[in-house]
């Protein structure tokens, strides 16, 4: 790691100095330190926001669950109100990483983590093309070993997925994220926080070379301060599919909310994880009115995935995503 300068933030406003270039904010540091070891980021200054305790609160106020950005994954996952009113979020947090990482990683930082693409996660200097690491150099994964990569929203310039589990749950739960920046406070739906590559390319216009580096709608100096999760009567579930039983990123995942009336699905939302660079929504039109059971759901969900665009080595994700969504609906349905 380069020799950098450190400063402790005393107020939220101190974090606005973090421009994502020569100044970064550090909270838990469980992602940032690895970026710096690999050469993904090399800031000259770190502003430590990790002791801003006002951003750590989790509480229910009325029909809203407020989750402070600095709450750790274990804190969020084990909080009684989260378990009760945002079950998929609790499950997603506790399925992430390891207990040690969850004691330190914050739910704010977690949604800003970068892809696990092995071509991206190599030590500098990269021997292959990666448009995120070096805009214009190409995408080695596009025609390379892309088992773990996107089946939606990708472009020839980048086929990465975004691996955050809580992001998928928050999106399915229709949560909002509150961003504070120099002179601004705003809220976005979590489902719009991240951009898939197609969206980033559309935004970049003729600066297509840089599109792969655009992953969220955060502007320089903005930080996440809290999430707001609406409290409803719907039930939710998160299913994470991985080849080993724990401490691993998802192959695919699914977060759902469901309301059931008379053993028929009345309302539902489905978000898929690790199939795109953002939580990917599945249309639920065709499952409304179906019983929340495997036999009915699986064919319908497979149909919903008909517009998937798998790469050479990741076709399995289509069937797996249908299976994951089905499991999550059945699980949440059992609780409804």
């Amino acid at each position, binding site marked *: 790691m380069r020799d950098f300068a450190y400063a402790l933030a005393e107020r939220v406003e101190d974090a606005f100095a973090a421009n994502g270039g020569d100044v970064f904010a550090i909270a838990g540091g469980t992602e940032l330190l690895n970026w710096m070891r690999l050469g993904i980021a090399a800031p000259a200054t770190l502003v430590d926001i990790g002791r801003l305790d006002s951003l750590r609160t989790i509480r229910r106020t009325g029909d809203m669950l407020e989750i402070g950005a600095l709450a750790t994954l274990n804190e969020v996952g084990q909080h009684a109100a989260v378990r009760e009113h945002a079950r998929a979020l609790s499950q997603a947090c506790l399925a992430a990483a390891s207990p040690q990482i969850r004691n330190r990683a914050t739910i704010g930082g977690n949604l800003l983590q970068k892809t696990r693409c092995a071509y991206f996660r190599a030590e500098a*200097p990269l021997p292959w093309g990666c448009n995120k690491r070096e805009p214009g150099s190409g995408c080695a994964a596009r025609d390379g070993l892309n088992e773990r990569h996107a089946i939606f929203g990708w472009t020839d310039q980048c086929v990465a997925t975004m691996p955050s589990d809580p992001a998928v749950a928050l999106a399915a739960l229709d949560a909002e994220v509150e961003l504070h920046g120099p002179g601004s406070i705003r809220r976005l739906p979590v489902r719009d926080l991240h951009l898939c590559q197609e969206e980033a390319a559309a935004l970049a216009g003729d600066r297509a070379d840089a599109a792969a580096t655009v992953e969220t709608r955060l502007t320089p100096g903005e930080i996440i301060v809290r999430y707001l999760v609406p409290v409803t009567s719907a039930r939710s579930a998160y299913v994470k599919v991985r*080849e080993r039983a724990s401490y691993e990123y998802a192959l695919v995942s699914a977060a759902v909310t469901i309301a059931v009336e008379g053993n028929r699905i009345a309302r539902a939302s489905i978000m898929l994880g690790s199939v795109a660079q953002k939580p990917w929504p599945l249309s639920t039109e065709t499952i409304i009115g179906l019983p929340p059971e495997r036999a009915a759901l699986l064919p319908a969900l497979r149909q919903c995935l008909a517009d998937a665009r798998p790469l050479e080595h990741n076709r399995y994700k289509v*069937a797996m995503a249908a299976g*994951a969504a*089905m*499991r999550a609906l059945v699980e949440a349905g059992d609780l409804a």
Partner: protein
Amino acid sequence: MTVGIATPRVEAPLKVTGAAKYAADIYPPNTLYGVLVGSPLAAGKLLAVEADEARALPGVVRILFAQDLPHIGKLEAPAAVTRMPMQDDVIEWEGQPVAIVLAESIEAAEQAASRIRVRIEPHAPDTPGRGRLERPPETFYKPQESKGSISEGLAAADTIIRESYFQPTRNHNPMETSAAVAAWDGDRLTLWDATQMTLNPLQVMAAAFGIPVENVRIISPHTGGGFGCKGFVWPHEILAAAAARVTGRPVRLQLSRAQQYSMVGHQAECRQTVTLGATRDGKLTAVRHEAINTCAISDTQFEAPAAASRSYYASPNIETDQQIERIHLICSTPMRAPIEGPGSWALESAMDELARALEMDPLDLRLANFAEAAPFDGKPWSSNKLREAYAEASEVYGWRSRHERPRQDGIWRIGHGMSTASTFCARMVGKARVRVRADGVTVEASANDIGTGNQTVFALVAAETLGISPDRVTIQWGDSEFPPAGPVYGSSQTMGMGSAVQHAAQDARRKLQLYGATEEGPLDLPELLRRANVAEIEGDGSFELPGGRSFNGSGTPYAMQSWGANFVEVGVDPDLGLVRLRRVVARYSAGRIINPLTARSQMIGSIIWEWGKATMEASIVEPTHGRFLAKNLSNVAIPVNADIPADIDVGFIDEYDEYASPIGARGIGELGATGVAAAIANAIYDAVGARVREVPILPAHILAGLSAA
């Protein structure tokens, strides 16, 4: 009676308190932190190493290039890489060391290393599938061997199976990355090293630096896992010593996790084809086992999987055929368990497919082909209780009634699979010394601790021989100043060093008989030493073999092999393609078990090793660039606690092999890591009817297998 009693590890208090020292825990005064810089490309000619920016960083003391190092010349085994890096401009693998950064802190050294630019004139690397095929030289086996005639055997068969099985490159990934700390005093070198065999770096350092062996001291109190990758001597060990010599300061060097992929060896990729012919009653008429291993450009090592078929089953016609494919990757190295580890993956899968084709119970097929003598040359076994192992394991498992039990548990489809375990018997020489005093006994040997429990074996053997309690025995190990011990690899340590310790203790006991010690039974050491009127009586012992080693009973009238029976229950989730381990029962024929506590842990550890191989592990070589795609633990999966159920039931058939070793033992460290992967694949087939012929068996394979079925 101490041998055979479950005994906690002698070194346990050191390990649970953090007092156990590993190589990188040694910090001589004035030590420099060393970080190696490796070639970013797999093949080419080194043009330049640009280090001006790096050299100017604060804390950087020196950066060494090829021209700064003493000439090392061509090395020999036990150096793993005989064409030493940093001696010429030829690049043959990604990660090949090209420079050494030396700094006052690890942070400065790592930062400087990252600022160095290596310029290479690239050549297109030979990658797996695109390398040059060759027949390897003869090592323990000839590359092509046959008994009888395969074509006649196949002609006589009612059923023939011919299938290919794939196993990718895998990395040992011990939790401790390889490390070495080197300090010179004039022409005398002390090297603290992470090694599985003290004598190996001892020999190689002396040869590399042209100094007498007496001038080298290797200290290795604890090694944090090896599994084969710390057996031979790798370039970083020599380079640490060279850097210390050139700078005149001690140098510490611990490989990063990424360098553990590119600077020490891995298990080579294995592509195998097994042909089995059998008559309707299940009797094998032909066994042909072909294998191709990837292999480095300049050094030759391969896992020899085809040789497994020489010893597993009786067959009138057996043929093995081994080839290597030279690629631009660091030289591979043996991995727990070579030969039968990968060989059993193919053979035991093929046997299961044969059983299915014959509509025969897989266990009955094994029993029908039990080898009463060594299949290839007919030598009688030194001792073989495989049939008892099959019987006990299948009974405890409930194998015969397996399909009477529920086939579904919630979403999980249950499957059962079995296989035969078997490993070679490598016997290696070694020496030990025993010092007897009034207050207790000390055993000395240069033996290494990688976690197999060998020190406790020594304590139990010494205590039994001298008729005292094991808690009166202290072990001194891991230092070349002690008598030269055999390696902690090849499952050879207990046979060799257990016997050497017994021999040394017997020598001491004989001397004590002069003072009235009985030949057998308990001894009163204080009284005997008082009568002897000395503070200490020494005994020396050794395990000796004509030619220095014996493989599978070579040099004796007997064939030697160890065996086991594996029974595995898995659950398969057909909608997500997941497979989870539910239960294992295994029984082994492995000679006398000295310490049941540590032996049990060894078998469980090796079964889990096979679970990793079967369901998740692969170090993929990127096909265009010829380097490992991921060189870390975040993109390469190895088993975690949640993968492993408590219900792993292992045990040993009571056995004493008087020919394998004077203490009646054979080897067990690798035996549990054979056959299990095939048993898992066989169980998956039993569960959902999907036959997967490549490991790791990933969810994608199961989903594909299900949609094909």
